[in-house]
């Protein structure tokens, strides 16, 4: 399989970040669907199964990303999920998905700090898609 066989759902309420991520993923060869909010993303998930999803954490609510992780896992258990956020330690929700306990409630396969280089993001995606 080649990259253009995969469609990635990108969800972020920052229009610039969304634009850049989609641009970089397209440039790397993937197909993309963009959503600007948790609500929009839920509408996409309801009728379409992406091959991978990248969620921002804080959108309509502080935990929109977590909710999306949970919902997509329920509907499509095999779709890899990346949680991307500009907040890490400083949210007061210090979390990663290193421990089993955190993995059990943060239903994401990977947690990425925003500001990641496009090449790095591409490599992480390739790992998750087993390319």
């Amino acid at each position: 399989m080649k990259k253009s066989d995969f469609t990635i759902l990108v969800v972020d309420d920052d229009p610039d970040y969304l634009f850049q991520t989609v641009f970089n993923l397209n440039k790397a060869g993937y197909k993309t669907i963009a959503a600007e909010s948790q609500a929009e993303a839920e509408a996409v998930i309801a009728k379409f199964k992406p091959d991978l999803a990248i969620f921002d954490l804080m959108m309509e609510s502080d935990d929109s990303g977590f909710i999306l992780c949970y919902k997509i896992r329920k509907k499509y258990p095999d779709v890899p999920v990346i949680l991307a956020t500009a907040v890490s330690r400083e949210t007061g929700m210090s979390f990663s998905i290193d421990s089993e306990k955190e993995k059990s409630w943060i239903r994401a396969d990977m947690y990425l700090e925003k500001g990641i280089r496009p090449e790095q993001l591409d490599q992480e995606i390739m790992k998750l898609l087993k390319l």
Partner: protein
Amino acid sequence: MAVLKVLVIDDEPGIRSGVTRILRDFHVTYPFMDEDYTFELLEAPTGEVGITVIEHDRPDIILLDNKLPGIQGVEVLEYIREKKYDIVVAMITSYASLDVAIKATRDGATDFIPKPFTPQELKSSIENIAKQLYLRRITRKLTEEGKQIRYQFLSVLSHELKAPLNALEGYLRMMQGKEAGDRIDDYANHIDRSLQRIQGMRNLIMDLLDFTKIRLEKKEGRIRQVNLAEVASGAIFAVRPYAIQREVNINLNVRSETIIMADPADMEIIFNNLISNAVKYNKIGGSADITIDSTDDEAVINVADTGIGIKKSDTENLFTEFVRIKNEKTRNISGSGLGLSIVKKVAELYFGTIEVDSTPDVGTVFTVRLPKKSLNIN
């Protein structure tokens, strides 16, 4: 009704049963407490048993005899202090020598009940202890909540400051890698967006300065007579270029001359924020109506727009820092999320209030009421 556990550690059975009898039906009440305190009694004949009970039942109050068969009362005190338990200890002793008293006080005993004591003496000691316990706990809770709120503010702030930097970095990297082409014109949109994000960040920093100023600045010497109509005119003048661009018509209606004692800069903050919001969240060709009126007691400022409106469920958190209503209608409107929280803080500084009344797609009215005679501001 809250229950405080009282542990009596005394080797004399008569004292233990006496205390139990006296406190069984006793309750403590104060106007400033949310609820009455009643007491549940626990007993221990020795310090050793006492420590077991402490570990098992975690009492709130301990009445402690110093002279005990095994370990002494002061040793029990030391144990509690080392474990840092939140327990108030009163010594009951007929051997209250100065030495014991000093040592016990140093180790955290807060009260002495001389033996023998009358029921009334015991009750008034317990009443004092319960009051002290209540204050200690409420203070701790408030301190923790305060820390929590500050921490949350800083964490959201750092998120808000990092987001535009991430966007800028992304666009610059795209240009650096010539991702969209070789010509500078290929990046017109990227540059445009970058400039907008920089402007957004600048606005956030300006708002942040207002925000911290409200909290920190001493008002003494700055309070003077302020004519609200003049401040409103200044704010309208400042926002006019933006209003022209958005074709929003601004009207000022002064029903009665309204002069209040205030720091003019604070009044500017109120008008600038409300009026620029009334333009920003308006429809093209809409209007913003500012009304200033006053009664004998208060000044009433009304800012009404014909804009996108706010859903009822969204108005609840509207005045919270960094809360921005995110929907299809607001997606292209930038803001720091601080404006209304600042207006509310300023209004409250003057013992005033702010209210919002809104209908989606029809418009929003903000009403600020400022009392005219309440100026003990520090």
